[in-house]
C-alpha cells in the first residue's frame, strides 16, 4: 500500500518542483480530407479536427484535476500539410488558406498549438512541398497557433540541400513578415533532420504517414524535479549521480504513462507514445541548465558541458524507457535558449555560444533551439547552420533541429521578448564568415555509408 512519504514526495514534485505533464497531443491523420477542391479540403479538415478533438481540452483538464497533476498544454498534430494539400493547392496562398483553417480549428477547440504545417523533403521536394515551404512566411504571419516544420534530411536519404537553401530564405522571410512581433513567426518554425513521426512537442510535431488515423501522444517534463533531487546528492560519484537521474526519470515518466493511458481511454483513441523529454520553461527552477550546473558546471558552455549533457540525456532515456510501454518522439533533454532561464543567464554571462550549443546538440535530443540571432544574418548563413545540424543528425542517426529567430532590426546584445512559454532571449553572435558559395550549390548530400544496412 502507498505510504505517506511517497504521497508527500509526489505532491512536493508537483507543488514545488514544477512536475507537470507538458502536453497531451492528439495526432490526427488528414489524408482522408484531401480533395481536388481547396474549399472541400478545408471543410473536411475543419470538420474532422473539430469532431475528433472536441473533448481534448476538457479531458486533459479533467485528468489534471483528478490526479492533481497539471496537464499544461493540449495540442494537435496533423499529417504534413504538404501531402494533404497536394491535390488542391496551386499557389502558396492556397496553402495559406489551409493554414488559416487549421488556426481556426485550433481556436475553436481551445488547443494552444496545432503542428503539422509541414513538408518532409529529406530527399527531394514535390511541387506541393515547395509551394508549402514558400507559403510558410505568409502562413506564420496570418495565424496565431499554427506550428510549421520541414524535415530536410535523414540518415537513410542524406540531406536535401535545395530544401536547406530554401529554408534559410524562408526563415528570413518569416522573420520579416512577423517583424512587428519580434519575428515571432520563426519561433513556431523548425527545420529538422530525422524528424520522428510521433513527436508531441511543438514546433516540430506532425502526425507522420506511418501513424494510424488518430492517436494520443504525451510529452512529460520535469527538469525541476531532477534538479531538486540532485541537490540532495551533491558531490556524489557518477554511479550515484546516474542512478539518481534514472530513478527520477522513471517516476516522472510513470505519471506521463498514467495520463496518456487515461486520456486515450476517455477519448476512445489508441495510446501512441510517451515522449520522455526534460522540457524547460522560463519558470524559475524549471531549467535544464540548472541541472547541468548542479552536475558541477559554473555555467552551461563551460568545458565538460557536452559530457554532462550526454550523461543526463542517456540517464533520462534509461529511466524513462522502463516506465512506459511505448516510448517515442524526441525523448531526452531539450536545450532551448529562450525557454530556459539558466541558458539565458549562461549566454548573458558570456559562457555559452552558438558553437558550443552545436556541440551540445550532438548528444541531446534536439538541436539549436529558440536562439535569437541578428536580423541581418544572411539567409545563406542560416542555411549553413541548418546544414551543420542536419549533418550531425544524419551521421549520428539522431533527430536534430534548428529553430533560430533572425530578429528583424536587432543586434548582438539586444534582448527579445516572445512572452509566455517561449520566453525571452539575448541576441547571439553568428559567425560572420560566409558559406554562400557552398549553399549556392544545387542538389543533395548523399546518404552516409552506415545507412546501407540491407
Amino acid at each position, binding site marked *: 500500500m502507498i505510504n505517506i512519504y511517497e504521497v508527500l514526495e509526489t505532491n512536493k514534485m508537483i507543488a514545488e518542483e514544477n512536475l507537470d505533464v507538458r502536453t497531451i497531443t492528439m495526432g490526427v491523420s488528414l489524408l482522408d480530407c484531401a480533395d481536388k477542391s481547396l474549399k472541400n479540403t478545408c471543410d473536411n479538415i475543419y470538420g474532422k479536427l473539430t469532431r475528433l478533438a472536441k473533448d481534448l481540452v476538457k479531458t486533459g483538464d479533467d485528468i489534471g484535476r483528478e490526479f492533481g497533476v497539471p496537464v499544461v498544454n493540449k495540442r494537435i498534430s496533423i499529417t504534413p500539410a504538404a501531402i494533404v494539400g497536394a491535390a488542391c493547392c496551386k499557389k502558396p496562398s492556397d496553402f495559406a488558406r489551409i493554414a488559416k483553417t487549421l488556426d481556426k480549428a485550433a481556436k475553436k477547440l481551445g488547443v494552444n498549438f496545432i503542428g503539422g504545417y509541414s513538408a518532409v523533403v529529406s530527399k527531394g521536394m514535390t511541387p506541393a512541398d515547395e509551394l508549402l515551404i514558400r507559403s510558410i512566411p505568409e502562413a506564420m504571419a496570418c495565424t496565431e497557433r499554427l506550428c510549421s516544420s520541414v524535415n530536410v534530411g535523414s540518415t537513410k536519404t542524406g540531406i536535401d540541400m535545395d530544401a536547406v537553401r530554401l529554408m534559410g530564405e524562408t526563415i528570413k522571410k518569416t522573420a520579416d513578415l512577423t517583424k512587428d512581433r519580434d519575428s515571432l513567426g520563426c519561433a513556431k518554425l523548425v527545420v529538422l533532420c530525422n524528424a520522428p513521426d510521433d513527436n508531441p512537442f511543438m514546433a516540430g510535431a506532425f502526425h507522420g504517414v506511418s501513424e494510424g488515423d488518430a492517436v494520443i501522444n504525451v510529452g512529460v517534463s520535469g527538469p525541476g524535479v531532477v534538479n531538486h533531487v540532485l541537490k540532495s546528492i551533491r558531490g556524489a560519484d557518477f554511479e550515484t549521480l546516474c542512478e539518481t537521474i534514472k530513478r527520477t526519470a522513471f517516476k516522472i515518466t510513470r505519471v506521463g504513462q498514467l495520463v496518456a493511458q487515461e486520456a486515450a481511454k476517455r477519448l476512445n483513441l489508441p495510446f501512441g507514445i510517451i515522449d520522455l523529454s526534460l522540457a524547460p520553461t522560463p519558470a524559475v527552477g524549471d531549467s535544464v541548465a540548472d541541472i547541468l550546473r548542479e552536475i558541477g558546471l559554473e555555467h552551461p558552455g563551460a568545458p565538460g558541458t557536452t559530457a554532462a549533457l550526454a550523461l543526463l540525456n542517456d540517464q533520462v532515456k534509461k529511466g524513462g524507457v*522502463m516506465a512506459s510501454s511505448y516510448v517515442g518522439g524526441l525523448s531526452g533533454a531539450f536545450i532551448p535558449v529562450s525557454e530556459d532561464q539558466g541558458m539565458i543567464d549562461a549566454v548573458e554571462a558570456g559562457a555559452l555560444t552558438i558553437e558550443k550549443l552545436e556541440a551540445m546538440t550532438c548528444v541531446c535530443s534536439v538541436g539549436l533551439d529558440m536562439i535569437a540571432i541578428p536580423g541581418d544574418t544572411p539567409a545563406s548563413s542560416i542555411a549553413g547552420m541548418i546544414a551543420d545540424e542536419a549533418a550531425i543528425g544524419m551521421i549520428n542517426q539522431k533527430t536534430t533541429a534548428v529553430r533560430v529567430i533572425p530578429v528583424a532590426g536587432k543586434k548582438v546584445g539586444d534582448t527579445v521578448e516572445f512572452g509566455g512559454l517561449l520566453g525571452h532571449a539575448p541576441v547571439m553572435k553568428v559567425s560572420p564568415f560566409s558559406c554562400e558559395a557552398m549553399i549556392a550549390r544545387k542538389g543533395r548530400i548523399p546518404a552516409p555509408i552506415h545507412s546501407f544496412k540491407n
Partner: protein
Amino acid sequence: MKKAIITVVGKDKVGIIAKTAVYLAKADINILDISQTVVQDYFNMMMIVDLGKTKKTFDKIGAELAKLGMEMGLKIRCQKSEIFEKMHRV
C-alpha cells in the same frame, strides 16, 4: 472500490481530523487508512478513502475539501490514487 488519497498539509491545530472525518462521513466516503507525520513543523496527513458509495462527483468532493481546508488554514487535496501507485511501484 474507487480509491482516492486525501492529503492535509498545514499548521497543526485541534480538530483537523475530526472536521475532515465528519465531512467524509456525511458524504458517505469510507476511510480505509490514516497516517500522519510532522515535517518541518508542518502537519501532514494522508487518508486513503473509498469513493465507491458516495453520490458526489469527484470534482465536487475535491472542491468542498479544498474549501474546508481553507476555513482551517490548511491545504486539503483529493487525488485519485493511481498517480502515487504508478509513480512509486514498478
